[in-house]
């Protein structure tokens, strides 16, 4: 492995000016940006806050970042990044007014950070179908950037999950509340079963996985372990494939709005539960403290890490960004 981990020193909230323009050998895949979806199931847990500030943190460190809002129903990443009225948006692409993704890019006040907004001229404008979403993601992979962050909508609808599928290790934001924890599990399980379904070759097994997604299924499949056993019985080769998919999915958990040590530890517990009960190798990526600065910086239409680069939150974002960089050389996209 390359010693990339030590090269990126994002310390104390102020990030060492690491030139993102010089690509290291073996950095990322052959070419193209790393796509990082930010989801979490529940609304209001801070997906947009995390996406905007993580994007800004990476951009401030010298990486070329594109932040993409894929929430056409509740677009506001542009506001979090201080772009009041985006001139272009994902809606233009969906409506086939604009096919050239680089033309959708809006500059932000932060160097190296560009935005694809999701504002819609009118509420009746169309939603993209599955094929159009896939096409969009493919186009994002062609962008000349180091990182492309996707700010996902709430829920576990197919339209949302398509975007979470773009890599093995998307970010799941949760806040220390039962409602959020419940939805985060639902979100990760939905992503997990969707991946399994996609990986199975035979129609029979795809149906079986679909069945298992419903917890009250009649076959009595309660956990992924049960499901694996069933699959192995039907076809050992598919069982092996199933096992590989199981191991490759590594969502990364971020706890937003931590007010106590207990809240901080929640991330560890959630990952432990994921591993043991859902066969999901979740990784705890870090936490963000509860802070009034978040609201203040939003009012000022600036990402927190840009408005308050020395705040605690900026330090925490720095830690999370560093983890992203450390693992960057090891992660690839889904085949």
């Amino acid at each position, binding site marked *: 492995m390359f010693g990339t981990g030590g090269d990126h020193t994002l310390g104390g909230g102020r990030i060492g000016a690491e030139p993102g323009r010089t690509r290291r050998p073996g950095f990322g895949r052959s070419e193209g940006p790393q796509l990082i979806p930010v989801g979490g199931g529940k609304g209001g847990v801070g997906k947009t806050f995390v996406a905007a500030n993580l994007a800004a943190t990476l951009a401030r460190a010298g990486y070329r970042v594109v932040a993409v809002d894929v929430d056409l129903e509740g677009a506001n990443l542009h506001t979090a990044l201080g772009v009041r009225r985006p001139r272009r948006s994902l809606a233009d692409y969906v409506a086939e007014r604009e096919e050239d993704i680089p033309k959708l890019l809006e500059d932000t006040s932060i160097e190296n950070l560009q935005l694809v907004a999701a504002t819609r001229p009118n509420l009746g404008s169309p939603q993209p179908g599955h094929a159009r979403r896939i096409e969009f993601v493919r186009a994002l992979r062609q962008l000349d950037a180091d990182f492309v962050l996707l700010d996902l909508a709430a829920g576990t609808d197919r339209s949302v999950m398509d975007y979470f599928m773009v890599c093995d290790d998307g970010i799941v934001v949760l806040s220390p509340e039962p409602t959020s924890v*419940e939805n985060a599990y639902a979100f990760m399980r939905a992503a997990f079963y969707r991946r399994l379904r996609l990986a199975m070759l035979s129609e029979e097994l795809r149906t079986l996985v679909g069945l298992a997604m419903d917890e009250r299924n009649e076959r009595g499949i309660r956990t992924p372990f049960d499901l694996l056993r069933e699959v192995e019985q039907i076809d050992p080769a598919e069982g092996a494939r199933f096992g590989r998919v199981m191991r490759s999915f590594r969502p990364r958990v971020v706890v937003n709005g931590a007010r106590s040590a207990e809240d901080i530890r929640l991330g560890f517990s959630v990952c*432990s539960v994921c*591993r043991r009960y859902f066969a999901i190798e979740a990784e705890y990526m870090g936490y963000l*403290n509860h802070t009034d600065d978040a609201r203040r910086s939003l009012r000022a239409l600036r990402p927190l890490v840009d408005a308050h680069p020395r705040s605690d939150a900026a330090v925490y974002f720095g830690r999370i960004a560093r983890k992203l960089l450390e693992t960057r050389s090891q992660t690839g996209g889904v085949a």
Partner: protein
Amino acid sequence: MKPIADQDHYEALDVSPSATRDEIERAYHLAKATYADDSLAGYSVFQEGELPLLRERLENAYRTLSDQDARRAYDEELTRPVRYGDSEPTEPFELPRAVDVVPTVVPPPLTLARDPDAEEGEEEQGEYDGARLERLRVRRGIELDEIAGVTKVNPAYLRFIEEERFDDLPAAVYVRGFVKCYARCLGLDPDRVARSYMQRYEERPSKRRRGLFSRRPTSPAR
């Protein structure tokens, strides 16, 4: 990963077989919090009646792995089937079910000499000095920076509290507040801890006793 019923003690605690004592302690406390009745992380996951069983499984694993002799015996149990498997290649290797292994490894009696804080309920009595606070903190896997992040207390002061560098700490009224915050972060009773700790603070051997507002403390660098 395997289904719960097939997990050995290490898997039950979610640690590697080469885990150190500290790692086992930390994993145990994390798992205890995870499987508590009011656990946030367990919300919507567990079915009724499942948690007591999981806790029992956890205690079982911890009892064995936290005792050196019992752990060594258990490790031998774990590896034995592999050696037998070598001579009988037709038999598929299967890890012994942890529940079957337990009775052969007699759980150590609870009277074994141990760290005074290792037992459940230990936090209810005794004096809280800096060293004990540190021990309790480390066992919970919490870093000083994390406490500082949540409580906004300068991490240097938190360190001074653990090191009992009373002369470097500000006036009593502040220290009491800091200690309470600290205790709350660890899930300890803030009042009890503060009372105990402040008694030590008041009885400190220093000649330069400070009144409430007699001297502004010099702020240590963050």
